[in-house]
């Protein structure tokens, strides 16, 4: 007997809907086994990870705070992935956006500058992320360099650049030698939505991004162009769509959204630039994009779900002494299952007798 992947005649709508749910279920089973092997109670772990954060209003607000950057980045990445363009470097674009926006906050710090500072920071953050993303895009279009490698490698360049800035030129003189900039002025921080909470205007921006992307993909010729270039490159050329321009476009948009998320994170919950501003948002957003089926609304839901794992992971570390890295393991396993389940949309598994080889030939 052998297992064979057989192409379906038509894509299965049922599995297209069920696939993310199935992937989550499989991930939970795998996680339970892992936790049990580590000698803890799996059910208690699942409770701490996924239920407890939902029972507490502080954690619920935190969920939205964590989901906002994930959703913003993932929406940008989904545009790339729909067009068959593989931007893996959102983490770096996130950091560069944070750095570019912070520059203005640092030089205006304590000068009494007006309320124009925050909007200008957001623009700088988006522009910085976009320009940084255009480096791998340009290398792909001009030299044929794999954007997967170049965009990923630039993450570490961005990380080290930020490290240098906060330890060197931008370090807070009154910061006890901690590697961080001075706390941003009020004109350089995101307004909060609810008095006294960490819930800030970034959540609204993320919502606007989701709606904008849904309109772009569903209603505009540009969105159509993105989908055709990804689904049928030859047909896209026949339609008159320029694949190289689209590489630049999708990288620029996703870089801008990652950069915007970066500066919002720094100007919002964090309040100053320091290493470790991102718990891996740029990479987790890749999982969010796929779990959300590369669909803006789906990404909104998936972003909230993965934000839950960040918060639950912190809770599990505190209350059950489970390692924080378990969260990353969880996210990795989830991506693995999502991709595996997605292949069931176009293929089906069949058991066939070993006496016959897989038959193929021209039809």
């Amino acid at each position, binding site marked *: 007997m052998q297992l064979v992947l057989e192409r379906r*005649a*038509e*894509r299965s709508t049922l599995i297209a809907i069920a696939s993310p749910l199935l992937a989550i279920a499989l991930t939970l089973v795998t996680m339970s086994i892992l936790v049990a092997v580590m000698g803890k109670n799996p059910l208690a772990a699942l409770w701490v990870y996924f239920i407890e954060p939902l029972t507490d209003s502080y954690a619920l607000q935190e969920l939205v705070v964590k989901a906002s950057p994930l959703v913003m980045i993932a929406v940008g990445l989904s545009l790339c992935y729909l067009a068959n363009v593989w931007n893996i470097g959102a983490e770096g674009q996130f950091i560069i956006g944070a750095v570019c926006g912070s520059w203005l906050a640092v030089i205006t710090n304590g000068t009494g500058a007006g309320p124009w500072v925050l909007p200008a920071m957001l623009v700088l953050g988006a522009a910085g992320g976009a320009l940084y993303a255009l480096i791998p895009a340009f290398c792909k279009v001009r030299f044929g360099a794999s954007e997967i490698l170049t965009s990923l490698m630039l993450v570490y360049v961005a990380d080290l650049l930020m490290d240098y800035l906060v330890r060197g030129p931008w370090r807070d003189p009154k910061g006890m030698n901690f590697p961080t900039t001075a706390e941003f002025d009020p004109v350089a921080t995101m307004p909060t939505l609810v008095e006294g909470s960490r819930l800030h205007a970034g959540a609204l921006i993320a919502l606007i991004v989701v709606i904008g992307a849904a309109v772009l993909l569903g*209603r*505009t*010729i*540009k969105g*159509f162009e993105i*989908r*055709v270039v990804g*689904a*049928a490159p*030859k*047909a*896209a*050329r*026949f*339609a*008159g769509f320029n694949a190289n321009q689209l590489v630049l476009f999708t990288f620029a948009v996703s870089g801008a959204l990652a950069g915007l998320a970066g500066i919002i994170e720094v100007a919002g919950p964090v309040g100053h630039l320091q290493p470790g501003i991102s718990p891996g948002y740029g990479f987790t957003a890749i999982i969010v994009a796929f779990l959300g089926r590369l669909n803006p609304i789906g990404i909104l839901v998936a972003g909230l779900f993965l934000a839950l794992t960040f918060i639950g992971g912190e809770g599990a570390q505190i209350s059950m002494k489970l390692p924080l890295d378990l969260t990353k393991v969880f996210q990795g396993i989830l991506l693995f299952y999502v991709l595996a389940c997605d292949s069931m949309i176009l293929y089906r598994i069949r058991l066939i007798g070993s*006496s*016959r*080889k897989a*038959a*193929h*030939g*021209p*039809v």
Partner: protein
Amino acid sequence: MDVASLHGPSGDRPLLQAIGITKRYGNFLANDAVDLDLYPRTIHALLGENGAGKSTLVKIIYGLIEPTAGELRWMGQPMVLAGPSDARTRGIGMVFQHFSLFDNLTVAENVALGLDGSESFAAMSARLAQVSRDYGLPLDPKREVWRLSVGERQRIEIVRMLMQNPKLLILDEPTAVLTPQEADQLFVVLERLKEEGRAILYISHKLEEVKRLCDSATILRGGKKVATCDPRQETAASLARMMVGADIAAVKPKSARATTVPRLVVNHLSMKPDDPHGVALQDISFEVKGGEIFGLAGVAGNGQDELFAALSGERRTDNEGAVIIDGNGAGVMTITERRRLGAAFVPEERLGHGTAPRMRLSENALLTGHAASGMVKHGFIDKLATLATVDKTTQAFDVRKAKRDPEAVSLSGGNLQKFVVGREILREPGVLVVSQPTWGVDAGAAATIRQALLDLSGRGAAVLVVSQDLDELAEIADRVAVMYHGTLSAPLTAQDATREKLGLLMGGAKTGDGPALEEREAAHAAGA
């Protein structure tokens, strides 16, 4: 190599019997209780339209797929095939319509890959040379496949099959890629193989060819066997009627044959290929007048694809005047700009080039319609307009589909082709460039499409038809020119364009093949 002695002196006993062969895919019966008897020393034709079940049946006989029901008997004994290698071991050989050859390997290396590897490469090469000489199928074992013509590539497949000394040979549409002269040579070889006592199963839909070559014929329609007959006792029309199940409406010539000014002009178009195995276009010039259908014949791979790309603007030339559409220099324009000048294009490949397979028909209407038909306003898609185009095309061209707006891939070849051609014709283009308009399309759809092309030119459009099907060109084209190694022959008028003349031009008469091949080799070396 007389194999008749292996299975008795006479052809009385069938070599292969297929009894009640049924193949079911879900609710669809690809083969429905088909019987077939193949005798030694006989060429048996398998006739039918696309989708009639010919391919399914031969794949079952070649062990590629397993029948749902029914039995195969080989020399009287029941036979269950474990796969193609089992079929080959028993003495069944097959040449597919689409070759499975590696371009960058030599002839001998390609043949070696298809054999079991029990003999040394040197011995195998020697045997290859021997077999190809014996059967008058000259091949240089050391030559790389990409340097060979399509006809030569087919010879590799045939020789590879003959080296296994098969008792039954299956050939799937072997003449589709050949010039008439090459086809004649192939028939001589087939006659000889038959005289050696082998059975040949010959799949075709070219009726004249079948009448000329075959001793018996089985006709399939909708998965069922409708008749077994002696094709020499039938007329082409009676065979066609059995295949289609109805009379095919003859294409009506357009009413007004008057031509107007040149609407598509190509001036000294030369272009290097972007693919290392592609063909360089060399100094191509021609013009198509309004009201005229200009046919472009030639064996596949002689630069037709490259010319289509240069005309459509998928690849732009560096000279504005190289392509002129309705008086506008369009050589450096994009495909979208050319569409805005009133040009329309239909590529050879329906799925993947002409349409995005997994997208809906309305989205595929937008694919070519976004440039010039009001489907896009201020960057936003007018979904109703795209759906209206689908409905109009469906109605005007009788596109059969399961729902209003299905994915392109779910349509049958003929219906999708009617959609792809209809989508362009509904825009009333002034210039239409269409490649292989009826390739792999059933007879009814082919007639509809040819009629639509004639009617369009009758309304004053200039129509360029690239086709390998000489019968099609004879039916609709006013003038025909032939592509060979990236060059274009002088056009012949329809009356002058006999099969013989076209065949000679397709084989490269009058034009030397030296420079073209050198350029391909240079391009290949640069790309390697």
